[in-house]
């Protein structure tokens, strides 16, 4: 995260490869399922031996015995509709919810989050020197309309995508944040409105951030969890 500060985001998980290295982010949408982006995975039709989701800690590489840290193997990956760039990852056993681990809300189907809504992105990825890469960084970032966003991207932003405000100081997600959440506040709850996907340039001053609009795929998400 470029332009973020250390913070708390109990639904954000760190996805770990076979060597135990952090390589992408994800969001807990219930005790057994994590949402992330397809771009982080080589295929949806393979097993995931050795991959895991780590949660319940702010530290990217917590010490052995760190209290409340949970590292749960991934057992299944399900690809979203083709243009969604989303995947759902099943945990081998349910995550234990507590003060440090909780699930994030899903928005209503096809809901458009109002412009100006307070949102935040979170991840353990690249800070480009703007923060501490050993801990979870969070950046506040309000929503802008697609219409507004398309002025910058010349009409390329699609309806299943959404944007957040371009700060002159440069705020945004970067390497190894992909798959993580764009969480927006709704009264006293946080809702998963977007998923971070790779963009050209990170935290580039004046450039809006683009996310996959989760509300377009809530029906698919629920179907996978039910099936």
């Amino acid at each position, binding site marked *: 995260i470029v332009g973020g500060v250390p913070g708390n985001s109990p639904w954000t998980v760190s996805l770990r490869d076979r060597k135990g290295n952090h390589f992408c982010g994800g969001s807990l949408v219930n005790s057994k399922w994590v949402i992330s982006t397809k771009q982080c995975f080589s295929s949806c039709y393979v097993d995931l031996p050795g991959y895991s989701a780590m949660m319940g800690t702010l530290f990217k590489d917590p010490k052995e015995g760190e209290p409340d840290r949970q590292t749960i193997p991934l057992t299944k990956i399900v690809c979203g509709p*083709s243009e969604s760039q989303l995947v759902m990852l099943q945990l081998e056993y349910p995550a234990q919810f507590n003060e440090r681990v909780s699930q994030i809300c899903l928005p209503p189907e*096809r809901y458009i989050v109002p412009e100006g809504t307070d949102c935040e992105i979170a991840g353990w990825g690249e800070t480009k020197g703007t923060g501490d890469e050993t801990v979870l960084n969070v950046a506040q970032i309000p929503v802008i309309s697609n219409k507004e966003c398309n002025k910058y991207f010349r009409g390329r932003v699609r309806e299943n995508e959404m944007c957040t405000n371009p700060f002159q100081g440069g705020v945004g997600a970067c390497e190894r944040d992909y798959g993580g959440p764009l969480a927006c506040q709704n009264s006293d709850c946080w809702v998963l409105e977007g998923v971070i996907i790779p*963009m050209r340039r990170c935290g580039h001053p004046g450039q809006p951030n683009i996310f996959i609009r989760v509300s377009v795929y809530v029906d698919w998400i629920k179907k996978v969890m039910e099936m």
Partner: protein
Amino acid sequence: TRSLLNDFQRSEGRELAPTVWNSARVLTLPGLTLEDCAKSCSKTLDCRAFNYETRPSITCKQLPWVEDGSNAEVKRNVNCDLYEKKVYVRKCIVGKGEDYRGKVSTTKSGHTCQQWWSKFPHDHRWIPSSTNGLELNYCRNPDGDPIGPWCYTTDQERRYESCNIPHCKDEVCITCNGEDYRGQVDHTENGMECQRWDQQFPHQHIYQPEKYPDKSLDDNYCRNPDASPVPWCYTIDPLVERESCEISKCSVVPKRRVRFSFTTNCFRGRGEDYRGKVNETTSSIPCQRWDAQQPHEHPFYPNTYECKGLEENYCRNPDGSEAPWCFTSVPQMRTALCLQIKRCADDIEAEDCYHENGKNYRGVVRKTRKGIFCQKWSVNTPHKTKINPETHPQANLTENYCRNPDGDQHGPWCYTTDPKTEFDYCAIKQCAGEKVSLIEPAEKVEFSECGKRDDRTPRSWSR
């Protein structure tokens, strides 16, 4: 620190089942550990293999044969692993081949070997015994001859001749840095024996076979799971953690690999075959040239990894990472993935189209977007259906045609015949000109049980 299992080749989920008339020659020992079972077989002269069963109870069954197509046959058994003595299954030799126990019985120029027990046509002084392996007329090397296994021939004119059995290090050659090597070399270049990959002693390590199924980390054979320059192994010497292995390089790279699998505009899988010209990271930082060691020193020299396409400063994946990557040109960031390169679409061509959300689709496409055949709606294998003709009688759930009984906004779908994929969308696209409509913000949306966060920062978090 040497495990006796090093002498055995394991076949997971297999058992060597004797023929009916041979079953009496099987020695059954209940309750032994795997190591003790191996120890017992090593001590028993005519034990050449053993089945190690874990269910319904732990049982060690010792057999006087390996799979040779006559006395016993290998069967699938998920509760059993078969261990065969390497010397009896190996088709190559180590060193001078004194321990070769294969079944080759012709010499390099095609002469049939004379039986060891016979003195005709060539008289000799070797006498078969239960320990010297001079069985029938198989090539052997009882006198440690540097030419390797040999035999007396049945040709009057030719007393004896080598059988030309290849050395394991030449039997299977390696291309590039040998990541695809699946041969049977189990010693390092300095002659040190390798440690089994499925053991953590004397060296603890992360390369557990079940975590890396694609690397075939079999027994204690040399392998290259981490894109080292050549195959290697951990050694049984506690003081030497790992060493490279000496394996011949293939003189010719197979052409097929060169032509068919490289991509330039997108990448497949982990992108090992990506050969495009993207040369900056997702965050637009220029990549460092592979043939440079500044600002980052690294082991990936283009000439050592000549098959990895390490040209210029292009994003590449020489080591099996999750996607193409590069060393960056900024000192503070050593490497970065190039995830901005598109993944190649692996959907098959759409075979039909649907209107709106496809709820009324009644076509005959029966494949998923990946080309996997659909499961019939009326059966429960491989997937137990929650949606079927009984639950949705109006949905025309016939055969295994793609349908949309639950009004999925993303189009017709089906249960699939792939056990790993419960359901998937079909090779059907929305008819041209139709759009997904989004809804405007609903007034008051209420949530419960989710998205709660304690925003006070407890002192205990400040480490």
